[in-house]
């Protein structure tokens, strides 16, 4: 499969992804509802901040942070791990492998294809944040916007590639959903999804800078809410893209080696 024909086929795959998202919109709506964690954390942290601000976060800052976290979570979602797991066990991965294009592209297209539908939820939430809390809820400079979108895309890439890597592990062991559970637990604690990473005890904060999790949610949220100046933002963005490169190497390596072991049970 040459690069050129992949590029030619990808828009079509994307269109398929979009129509799938439109067809199963009720299902997607429930998925969106099940990511209400930021709202719960928002209630919690505004309650904490009612007495005195936490760090530099007042009640309003927490509302802004968690609305942004909701937006970013929606736009960086990936579920390839479960998909790969399921298809390996059912043997239907064989069907995908018959196509003249790597299954990874179609998984990616399915994820990306759902984003236009998600905008219907995400844009009102972001607009509400701006209406309620002012323009500080979105990037205020041109470079801010560019960096935000770059970090959002990288955040999705890290999430997706981690999904691929863990999903591929199901080719080495019977099922990798347990592994995914561990990843998700770490993700919840370390990503800035439950609290801004700044509020983490200082001893751990340095470790968070080097782990991939904060670059999935924390960094895009911080860039959306204008937390960093240009140089700090650039440095963090650099680390994020380093993680993208690393994840790309790991997941593609695992995928290539794993496929050799694939025996299509039941297929």
């Amino acid at each position, binding site marked *: 499969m040459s690069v050129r024909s992949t590029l030619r086929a990808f828009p079509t795959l994307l269109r398929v992804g979009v129509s799938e998202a439109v067809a199963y919109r009720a299902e997607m709506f*429930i998925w969106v509802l099940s990511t*209400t964690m930021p*709202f719960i954390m928002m209630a919690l942290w505004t309650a904490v901040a009612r007495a005195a601000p936490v760090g530099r976060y007042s009640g309003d800052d927490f509302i802004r942070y968690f609305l942004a976290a909701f937006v970013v979570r929606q736009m960086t979602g990936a579920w390839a791990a479960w998909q790969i797991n399921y298809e390996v066990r059912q043997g239907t991965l064989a069907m995908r492998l018959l196509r003249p294009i790597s299954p990874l592209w179609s998984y990616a297209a399915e994820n990306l294809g759902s984003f236009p539908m998600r905008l219907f939820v995400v844009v009102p939430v972001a607009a509400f944040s701006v209406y309620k809390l002012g323009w500080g809820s979105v990037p205020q400079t041109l470079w801010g916007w560019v960096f935000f979108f770059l970090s959002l895309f990288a955040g999705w890439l890290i999430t997706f590639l981690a999904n691929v890597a863990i999903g591929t592990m199901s080719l080495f062991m019977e099922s990798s959903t347990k592994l995914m559970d561990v990843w998700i637990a770490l993700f919840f*604690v370390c990503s800035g999804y439950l609290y801004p990473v700044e509020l983490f005890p200082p001893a751990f904060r340095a470790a968070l800078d080097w782990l991939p999790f904060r670059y999935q949610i924390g960094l895009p949220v911080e860039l959306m809410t204008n937390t960093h100046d240009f140089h700090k933002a650039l440095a963090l963005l650099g680390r994020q893209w380093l993680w993208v490169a690393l994840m790309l190497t790991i997941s593609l390596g695992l995928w290539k080696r794993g496929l050799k072991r694939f025996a299509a049970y039941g297929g």
Partner: protein
Amino acid sequence: MFRRYIRLFGVQLRASSLLAMQYRGDFIVEGLISLFWSATALAPLFVVFQKQGQQIEGWSFGESLLVIGWFTLLQGILEGAISPSLTGVVEHIRKGTLDFVLLKPADAQFLVSTTRFLPWRATNALAALAIFVYGFHILGTSPSLLGVLASLVLLGCSVLLLYSLWILTVSAAFYVVKVDNLTYFFTSIFDAARWPAPVFRGVLAFVFTFVIPLAVMTTFPAEALLGRLSLMSLVGSVLGSVFFAFVSRRVWLHAIGHYTSASS
């Protein structure tokens, strides 16, 4: 009749224990993951209460630990005893194999609710106990006997509530085919029970008290242990959970009544 159901329950429980022990590697991994989950569940609490003497809505660190303890226990019950067998129902509906269950000479709700248990989730009970001990150690008190009794009554209520809510969710599967994400929805909402109920205000407070009574499940038992739950709340919770159970049973019967097997 009643004796027969008890025996049936015993058989089902033994079968799932054997099933769980069959893959020993998995068995141990499951246990480790249970412990890991309990540990990560505590992380947000430590972040919130980093500052000495910090309180949220009148709840101190030690008191919030009690809420988390109840949450951990209930999570164990939910994931170990309630949801494994009931997610099976969804699978049955999709494949059309529910017919086999309906043909058996026992109550269908009983059968589908007792098919599968994950014994390893019992580690959650141990974790909860450790959290209670730690919480009371920090508070420097111990619960009164009356408080313990009241909290045990409330534990019964919470299990009944969780089970009923779950039955309601599963009944929805008869009308909406694809429901595995409804179960995700349920667990993610249940997560809010980790925090003392007064944290939530406005619409959320209403929903979490009356629609999805999370307050009853974790905050009330914690208050009972602390000896500050009013008798009114206790009686209200018992009546409320019985009412919930009644409603869910009616909905289940209605759903079963309208079930047409996948092949017909």
